[in-house]
């Protein structure tokens, strides 16, 4: 734990989990889409659904999607900001079953047609977890540059990815593997100590058997809104 998590962060209130955490989720979704967001479908579950209006969770998520940081004083006015930026959004409730009480499902469409579906949770103190991407189980915090590769479940793809990372001197902090069923769709989540070069991500996207590559960069500047 960081000292500045105990005195800090500087944030817009009222709640680290329901406000600051929601801003972070919005931001990570925006970065994962890797495209300017055209429209967002937002579904609140559990405590997010029942207390989200009172905590400004709705405004916080939209602010994050627009690129606001947790201390951005425009968070309370994010709906107006979204209107000016041409971001369309809809908010509804949902029952995600056994999901964490502070969970949200977000479907994003980018201006170039990219699509992304995410389920994320705010797990307390402003920390968050991404639990699902495009219907596949994952589990990462967004604290590291994270590479998410969806591929066909067949031999060799893990080596494709890891040898590329080795070649680019990117060290792996944590790696997780999931698959739907044998020979079906699989996903690898790789949290890295360094940023993965853009060209290498493009190269991966064109490999046979790779379905989709999503990348969370921490180097990217906050979007100017």
């Amino acid at each position, binding site marked *: *734990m*960081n*000292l*500045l998590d*105990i*005195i*800090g*962060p*500087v*944030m*817009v*209130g*009222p*709640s*680290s*989990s329901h*406000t*600051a955490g929601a801003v972070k989720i919005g931001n990570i979704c925006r970065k994962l889409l890797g495209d300017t967001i055209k429209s967002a479908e937002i579904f*609140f579950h559990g*405590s997010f*659904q*029942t*207390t*989200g*209006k*009172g*905590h*400004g969770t709705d*405004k916080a998520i939209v602010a994050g999607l627009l690129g606001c940081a947790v*201390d951005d*004083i425009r*968070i*309370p006015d994010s709906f107006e900001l979204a209107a000016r930026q041409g971001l369309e959004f809809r*908010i*509804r*409730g949902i029952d995600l079953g056994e999901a964490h009480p502070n969970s949200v499902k977000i479907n994003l469409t980018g201006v170039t047609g990219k699509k992304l579906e995410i389920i994320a949770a705010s797990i*307390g*103190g*402003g920390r968050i977890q991404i639990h699902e991407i495009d219907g596949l189980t994952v589990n990462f915090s967004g604290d590291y540059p994270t590479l998410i590769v969806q591929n066909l479940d067949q031999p060799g793809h893990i080596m494709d990815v890891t040898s590329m990372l080795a070649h680019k001197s990117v060290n792996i902090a944590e790696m997780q593997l999931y698959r739907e069923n044998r020979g079906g769709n699989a996903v690898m989540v790789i949290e890295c100590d360094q940023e993965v070069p853009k060209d290498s991500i493009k190269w991966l996207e064109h490999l046979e058997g790779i379905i989709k590559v999503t990348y969370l960069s921490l180097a990217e500047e906050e979007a100017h809104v």
Partner: protein
Amino acid sequence: MYKALEDLIREEQSSGIPFWKLVQKDDCKEQNKSEEQSFQEMQYIYRSMRSSFEEYDAKLLSASGLVGGEGARLQKWREAGKMVSGEFISSVMEKALKISESNACMKRIVAAPTAGSCGVVAAVFLGIQEKEQISEEKMAEALYVAAGIGGVIASRAFLSGAAGGCQAEIGSASAMAAGGLVYLLGGDAEGIANAAALALKNLLGLACDPVAGLVEVPCVKRNVMGAVNSITSAELTMAGIRSKIPPDEVIDAMRSIGRGMSEEIRETGKGGLAGTQTGIHYRESMSQSW
């Protein structure tokens, strides 16, 4: 991060390095950060605390409409000379109320340790600085003291209402403010830890029972109480009065009480004040779901 206040006391006594500096050095090592950068960040935190008070807007109302404008009301009462508490405590009460109201109204604050308890440390520190004309540098040092106490509480127990009830939020904030205040009044590590213990003891068992699950009622007014409690704890300490239970054991008691608390009173908005007839009425009249 330190796991015992006892360790900080012993190290200060053996090395002569003050409590705040020990906390800073430890964090810089862990985060691989220079002491200079760390100090600048802490000064920024303190300036942000001041802004969270100065930018108070009496016209704002929280989402539920239950919070807003009361800081200005107290200010008026204080300025009319009606308060019997004396200048320092009156001014700290006003600051705690205003900062905490600002949080409920989606203004920018410093979580210390949480957003719901943001008014405690900030109000006490701003108040004593105003009264004693203390330098910005010294105030940043006191923030390390407060953070060091919070760090020990985090590693031995918890800092969130969901984990351990309000004792973990306002209780911890009050302990952090008490220790910081003792430092600013000239106390050493032993005094800092003692004040933290006295403050936390008074708030053991406090439930987290927010009406409608929102950081409003009773959270805002509990910030005022937490701030004043830290002042009384620091005063007792400076007079040489000691907790009969050692500080680390008080924190352990907070953990065991928190573990035994039912879920109803751990931020779920079900039990305690939230579950009263009026609390339920407020919740139902808000229609805040989608």
